[in-house]
């Protein structure tokens, strides 16, 4: 399945939800902001937010320190 992540096209297999995508990208779900096709997804919906061919995902990742 082709998904555009932060502007680059990527091919994934066995990815069904935002939760799966974050797991594959090894990103801690609680430290990111996810936008799926221009809609901000709340963390409690990462599992139910299904991904389909051609989706555009923006992921903003935060690391600790301030």
């Amino acid at each position, binding site marked *: 399945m082709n998904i555009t992540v932060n502007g680059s096209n990527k091919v994934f297999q066995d990815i069904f939800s935002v939760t799966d995508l974050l797991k594959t990208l090894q990103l*801690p779900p*609680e*430290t*990111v*902001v996810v936008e799926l096709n221009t809609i*901000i997804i*709340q963390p409690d919906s990462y599992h139910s937010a299904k991904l389909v061919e051609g989706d555009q995902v923006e992921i*903003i*990742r*935060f*690391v*600790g*320190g*301030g």
Partner: protein
Amino acid sequence: MILVNEQTIPFYKGLTMADLAAAHTPAADIFILNGFPVQANTQINDGDSCSLIQKGVIPTSDEIDALLTARHTPGIQKKIRASTIAILGLGGLGSAVAGAMAKIGIGKMLLSDYDVVEPSNLNRQHYFVDQIGLLKTHALQQNLLRMNPSVSLKLIDERLTESRLPQLFGKVDILIECFDDPEMKAATLRSVLTGMKQVSYVGSSGMAGFGDNNTVLTKKLYPGIYIVGDEISEARPGMGLMAPRVGIAAHHMANQTLRILLGDVQGR
């Protein structure tokens, strides 16, 4: 014309510092001519800039505002003075951003942190050893009012949650995210994007250690939404937060805030 305490007055030949002091600040005991201390009998030339200071006397709020207006120009100072910002997290980033914004005469700041000053904070955070144990909000208030007594401060010392953010900060011009915790960082951006559509945002990610200066960047995510940092330098054992690089990021944040306030870059 010459400048005397940031006010323009006519020049005439033979004028000395003592003459100016007699006319403007009779109690002055320190005379600064073009940035250098001089004797009272020093002659002044056309175009000089003179400061007459009375040791130990604190300028009034009006005087400080006049000094800032003279330095920044009236149009700019009016915008800065009319602005309200919120700083979330008063650690290495937040305490430095607050200092920069107080110094330029920001109108109002909402300062938020639930923590107290600890000895381990002092390698980067703008507090003093005699403030250990004070709430950071209270300690920072003391310090900021010594920098600029005319800034208006609102202190919020509760532990914040995502749902509280719009209630507390939904009306500010710019929210500046200076948390340590990456979960609160993400929660804050989400909250600004979904629940605070009028509020501009300057956030932070990645400024630990002593890596390259020039990988700390200010990046536009969306119109009026900016993030500062190198995106990767996470605070962890072996790569702690240190004053120099945290200061670079903090002042990126402060300058981006100013640029938004002055309309130099897009706000929301």
